[in-house]
């Protein structure tokens, strides 16, 4: 027995109410629940409500029927606990993090053998080195800008619905931002080391930025890669 579009929508709304906000997490749960409900209705001959409640429990969402009147069991049962879904999301988050870290180092190794990147890195270092001879502060600004630009480019995407409500996109975005926070922490921590009689010595800061540049660049490449997959899947979802 196939569920109607309205029944599928009902399950999707029930998942949202149970705090499964990210659509890329919800699609997997939705498909599983719909398949299981259809199966139970066909093979066990039970109603939609009974089947959905059964599947809800099978995800580890506990429901204590004691004290609940029979006509309220369905309604209360679906929203009494979402512990199973929360665990599902936590686990997914952990695995996405692992996947991103693994992919990050693969892209990192690939990038270092790309002629295009080697050239880009050499031009970046030369631009900073030459600028430093004349205006150290300007060299510092160029280096800082190179780290901030990927973060600014992200703003083009982060507010789009498909990206904003995607766990994959959110997590990879966070990895990107962490590099920016890291450099901020570095500067804050060692600020006294770079200042002599009130004058800032930009040498070490610039060297640090030059070293961090490939890490940020790779992180942005990973962001773009995940974003493309996310956008492709979201397009399929709303089609």
């Amino acid at each position, binding site marked *: 027995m196939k569920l109607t579009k309205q029944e599928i929508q009902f399950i999707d709304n029930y998942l949202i109410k149970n705090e499964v906000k990210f659509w890329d997490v919800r*699609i997997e749960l939705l498909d599983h629940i719909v398949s299981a409900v259809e199966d139970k209705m066909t093979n066990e001959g039970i109603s939609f409500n009974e089947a959905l409640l059964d599947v809800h429990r099978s995800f580890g969402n506990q429901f204590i029927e004691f004290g609940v009147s029979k006509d309220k069991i369905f309604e209360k049962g679906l929203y009494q606990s979402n512990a199973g879904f929360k665990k599902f999301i936590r686990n997914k988050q952990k695995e996405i993090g692992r996947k991103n870290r693994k992919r990050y180092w693969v892209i990192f190794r690939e990038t270092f053998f790309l002629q295009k990147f080697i050239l880009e890195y050499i031009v970046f270092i030369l631009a900073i080195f030459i600028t430093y001879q004349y205006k150290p502060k300007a060299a510092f600004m160029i280096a800082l800008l190179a780290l901030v630009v990927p973060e600014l480019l992200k703003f083009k995407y982060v507010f789009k619905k498909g990206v904003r409500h995607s766990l994959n996109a959110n997590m990879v975005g966070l990895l990107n931002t962490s590099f920016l926070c890291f450099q901020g922490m570095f500067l804050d921590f060692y600020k006294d080391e770079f200042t002599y009689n009130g004058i800032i010595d930009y040498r070490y800061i610039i060297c640090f930025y030059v070293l961090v540049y490939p890490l940020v660049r790779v992180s942005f490449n990973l962001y773009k890669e995940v974003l493309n997959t996310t956008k492709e899947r979201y397009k399929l979802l709303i089609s």
Partner: protein
Amino acid sequence: MSNSKLYKGSLNTIILKLLNEHDKMYGYEITQKVKALTKGELKITEGALYPALHKLEAEGLLDVEVAKVDNRLRKYYKLTETGTKETVTKLEELAEYIKTMQALVNPKLA
């Protein structure tokens, strides 16, 4: 299922083996296939299946393909090249384990 703890360590191998025999499978299909193959003796719970699938995906053993089916999206899992190699290793390990257990539990058959 009589004792789920006995099967727990073999879940990844079961998933890999099934995916090795099929081009691609989705979550619910895996649970039903295992149930059918074991005549209902082994039921993989949702709470165990998805963490295992996501872990295998994170390790690069599985790849994901998304398709639109009956008004919803479906995530299909399939083996990567590394996953196919790993399946062979895992199955060998499992066969060795069964052999060892057999020698311990029933030496006559071993």
